[in-house]
């Protein structure tokens, strides 16, 4: 039995304006949470749509649970998905919307009430969808994705519009599902959230996969950094020069110097800055995080 839930090989989608996704390659092991990240327009949603059979690739192939995406009818009954945010009929209640999808997919109608409770919509399940807040709509979207009791859950920005408590609930839910063997493929712009829950990560940039693999492996490729602030902003350039003289890469972002280097070198820098008459107001060694790594790899600060 294969251990791969999603396998993407040279997958491409080309429009008249150019490639939305270009020769993408990655694999997602069964039972893991895989973060799918990239700047706006990187091709995340296009990739997800191809995996769900909504749009046809112009090149390459992909397999979900061992089945080609050319035959979505063979695997979609085991896949739950929320693409581009929740989309439901405004005049129907949340429960009735789920019943439409449950009927269509051949899932037990009794599951609807259970899912409404799981996503925290009890008491509002029979209100019309058009009266829901963005967070409630998002919860309903997640409930719809869970209808088939899926082996693979594909979620596009599931925490959009949720308050911090809601974000934590979704995080816990995804962790629980993964612990039960569900593969979760989730795109989000909340990189700190993905860093907490993901074991695997796929990074897209301008339609191309720039990294795909275990998150730990990605972090090991990144240098720890030291964040430095000075009393006078004009002294930051001098700090950069000191760092570069010692062979460290350094840049200034938002009046903070980002210097690649181990925490031990921070003491050396502090002394050299003192000798140069520079007053430091912050000297903070940091381990690499997904957000910094993402910016580093994609060059995107939007």
């Amino acid at each position: 039995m294969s251990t791969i839930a999603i396998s993407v090989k040279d997958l491409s989608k080309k429009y008249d304006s150019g490639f939305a996704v270009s020769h993408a390659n990655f694999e997602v092991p069964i039972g893991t949470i895989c973060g799918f990240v990239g700047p706006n327009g990187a091709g995340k949603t296009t990739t997800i749509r191809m995996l769900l059979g909504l749009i046809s690739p112009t090149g390459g192939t992909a397999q979900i649970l061992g089945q080609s995406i050319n035959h979505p009818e063979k695997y979609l009954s085991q896949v739950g998905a929320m693409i581009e945010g929740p989309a439901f009929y405004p005049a129907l209640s949340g429960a009735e919307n789920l019943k439409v999808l449950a009927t269509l997919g051949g899932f037990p109608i009794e599951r609807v009430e259970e899912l409404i409770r799981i996503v925290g919509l009890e008491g509002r399940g029979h209100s019309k969808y058009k009266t829901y807040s963005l967070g409630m709509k998002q919860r309903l979207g997640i409930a719809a994705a869970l209808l088939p009791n899926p082996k693979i859950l594909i979620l596009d920005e599931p925490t959009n519009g949720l308050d911090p408590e809601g974000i934590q609930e979704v995080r816990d839910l995804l962790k629980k599902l993964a612990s039960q063997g569900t593969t979760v493929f989730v795109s989000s712009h909340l990189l700190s959230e993905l860093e907490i829950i993901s074991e695997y990560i796929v990074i897209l940039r301008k339609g191309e996969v720039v990294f795909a693999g275990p998150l730990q492996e990605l972090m090991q490729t990144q240098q720890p950094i030291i964040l430095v602030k000075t009393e006078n902003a004009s002294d930051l350039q001098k700090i950069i020069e000191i760092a570069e003289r010692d062979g460290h890469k350094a840049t200034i972002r938002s009046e903070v110097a980002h210097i690649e280097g181990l925490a031990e070198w921070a003491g050396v820098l502090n002394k050299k800055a003192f000798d140069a008459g520079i007053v430091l107001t912050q000297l903070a060694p940091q381990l690499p995080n997904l957000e910094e790594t993402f910016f580093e790899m994609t060059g995107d600060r939007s």
Partner: protein
Amino acid sequence: MMRVIRAEWRKLRRPTLFLGTLGAALFFTGLTNTFLYLMIDSEGGNSDRGREVGREVLNLAGGSVYGFSSVGGLLGVIALCVFAAQTAQEYTYGTLRNLLVRQPGRLRILAGKLIAMKLFALVLVLISAAVSVGISVALSGRAKVETDLWFTASGFHAIGQTLLNVTISVIYFGIVGMVLGLLLRSPISAISIGVLWLLIIENLIGAVKPVTLDWMPGNQLSTIAQGGSPDVSYSHALILGTLYVFVGSIVAATLFSRRDVAN
């Protein structure tokens, strides 16, 4: 297929849609029948396009459903609006992607939706027919129309035949609406273009050049409901109407099955 039909029916049966549509259908049914009987002696005519329908026609076996056959075109326009809205709103709400994830067979989705909407149209036609006959019976005395032949064997045959013709017509109108909804992917565009064409453009062109009405799709479908008209024969309308609906369906189904679902 049954799952698609049942899922679609869940949407169609909601009270605002069902009762709203039925209300519109009964309004036109009531209005047409009331004019037919209460204005029977009017010099301005008592039927569509100012036609005069006298007692000698209404006294016949098919008299009980004459009004119903006349309102068939308007029931068709209502069906066009419902079919177009129910189809195009899947694009505007973004719900089509949910449907296709749960049922990837696109033609199955299309066929299931169509069957569910046909059932909806059938219910609409049956209730309208019953109300129409009821109004005809109620107003026949006041209009001095004899009803002796209405409920004989040939009277019931006429009722059945008219019911069949109006059902075919209404479903054809509905399919035109569905085709427009699939092509335009917007309920407002599909309904406005459909209604504008059927109620205004066709009539304007027909008024300037009457011979064009022999080929106009809306006129063919209305003529089917009426079982033929002085200008267009029933068989001509049925063949041409079926051809229009068939070609439109093939084009729309081909597009729907191949087009990317991007938004």
